[in-house]
């Protein structure tokens, strides 16, 4: 089949079927936008993990008077015990990267400052806090080394890994992003069904043409190619628009607004949109070809 003839047939087909083509474009755009958002959410979680795991600290809480930690037995940590813990931490570089000491008063002030807009900030009392060593690690996964060294040591109430708290947050984020992807998959199913319906309708409306093609000896490829290409073109336009929307969302919504409003965390950027673009566009083309090929196999048999 000559290229000019093929292009002419594709153009005619798209022109004659404008409303259905527009619906395929829109449904593809929405489903690919949602899918893209799901993929970007996953990348956001990864980006935040990288950012926070670099900053994650292990807290070694010491005992205060009438401490509730079982290891403290109600008495406060002595200066000797405190110095011993500090000396041991200094000897453990690496994996220990840095060590900060935070007093009970400092911890209380930091909490009040963090929750200044919340009733939690007002209700908290200084007694609920303890002196602690804040230990940052060269590798966040080496928490076990610290825990095994200090858990139960004299004067140490509790060893807490912030990573465990973060993991809960990231698990939640993952659930959100997978939910977005699941929703997107539903939309993709809608897009596939709409594509199949459109192709069936187009094939039906052009049955006279395809009937003649079959009779004069046109190959399956020649008969089916215009339908497949029309679907691919409509799906590509939809995917292209989805990518434009994703770009605008990330460029102006995330990189332009969120990352300046919330400076204490890392956000995805335009390069992440570029990174997912080939997958989204390639997926759409594969979907359009498979859907149209499968549908036409039933409806345009030689």
């Amino acid at each position, binding site marked *: 089949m000559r290229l000019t*003839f093929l292009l002419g047939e594709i153009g005619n087909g798209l022109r004659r079927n404008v409303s259905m083509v527009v619906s395929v474009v829109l449904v593809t755009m929405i489903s690919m936008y949602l899918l893209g958002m799901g993929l970007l959410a996953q990348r956001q979680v990864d980006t935040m993990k990288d950012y926070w795991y670099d900053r994650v600290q292990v807290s070694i809480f010491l005992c205060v008077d009438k401490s509730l930690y079982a290891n403290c037995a109600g008495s406060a940590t002595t200066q000797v015990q405190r110095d011993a813990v500090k000396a041991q931490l200094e000897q453990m570089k690496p994996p220990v990267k840095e060590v900060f000491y935070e007093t009970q008063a400092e911890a209380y002030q930091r909490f009040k400052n963090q929750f200044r807009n919340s009733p939690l900030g007002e209700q908290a009392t200084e007694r609920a806090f303890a002196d602690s060593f804040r230990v940052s690690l060269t590798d966040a996964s080496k928490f076990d080394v610290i825990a095994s060294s200090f858990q139960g040591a004299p004067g140490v109430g509790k060893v807490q890994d912030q990573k465990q708290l973060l993991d809960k947050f990231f698990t939640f984020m993952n659930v959100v992003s997978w939910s977005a992807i699941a929703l997107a998959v539903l939309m993709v199913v809608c897009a596939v069904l709409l594509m199949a319906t459109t192709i069936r309708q187009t094939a039906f409306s052009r049955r006279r043409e395809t009937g003649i093609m079959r009779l*004069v*000896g046109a190959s399956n490829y020649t008969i089916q190619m215009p339908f497949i290409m029309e679907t691919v073109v409509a799906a590509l336009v939809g995917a292209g628009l989805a990518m434009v929307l994703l770009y605008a969302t990330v460029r102006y919504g995330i990189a332009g607004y969120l990352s300046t409003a919330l400076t204490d965390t890392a956000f995805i950027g335009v390069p992440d949109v570029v990174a997912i673009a080939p997958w989204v566009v390639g997926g759409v083309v594969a979907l359009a070809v498979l859907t149209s090929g499968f549908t036409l196999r039933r409806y345009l048999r030689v």
Partner: protein
Amino acid sequence: MILFDTVTKKYPRTTRPAVDSVSLEVERGEFVFIVGQSGSGKSTLLRLALKEENATSGAVFVAGRELATLPDRKVPQLRREIGTVFQDFRLLPNKTVFQNVAFALQVIGKSRSVIRQTVPETLRIVGLEGKEKRLPHELSGGEQQRVAIARAIVNKPAILLADEPTGNLDPGISLEIVGLLDRINRSGTTMVMATHDLYIVNAFRKRVIELKEGRVVRDDLGGEYNTGDIVMPEWDTRPSLDAVAVGDAAGGAEDSTDLAQAGDSHTGEADGPNSDELVAVGAAGKESKTPRLKRRRGQ
């Protein structure tokens, strides 16, 4: 060229086969009328030859191929050797005469130069010269059927199958169309025409295969078709028709011997005969049996 060997075709959910143990052979260059009432199996026979349907049992051979063993990917090649014409013309309403004929070549990948050369030649053969830019609805029924015939022969098929090609046409135009098909046949194309038009069959005196309830009940050379309850035309020995309405034909065809050449390298020296000549060509070589339709008095 076409061989049916004890072919039976039974459609699902039917009690009687559409074609029942049919055996027949059509030689290269023959002109055969398949006759019979509606539902007698004429169209099914043509569909089997086109491999639009597969035989339930028996073997169908077309142009040297056994269709039962022909893989799907080779079916298009088979159909390029078969032209088909139908009662309802099956033209594309949004394409011009030229585009309708060219379409048959475009979809099999012929180049633009071949199309530019072949389509006008074919339109001239069928008598549609000068009407290339008309849309189908701007043509009469006879002209539309000529376009359909042009589309069927533009790729120079070895076989031409016509399924009731005159079913939508009045008797005079029908004779012209079959005359055209006859001329195409004389250029070497094997012609199989399904019809229940007794006037046509009796006018051309070709081989007649009659089907009844899917079975061949008659196979006569130069046969007639007489249903027994319809007034038959009379025949005389005059060499041309004088009672046929011929308003449809625009001329455009030379002697049938030119037809074979015209497809390849036509010189275009003739303007083409009028429709009387065209019908006369359809009966050429049969001076004593040139058909002449005559309505009986009072009809």
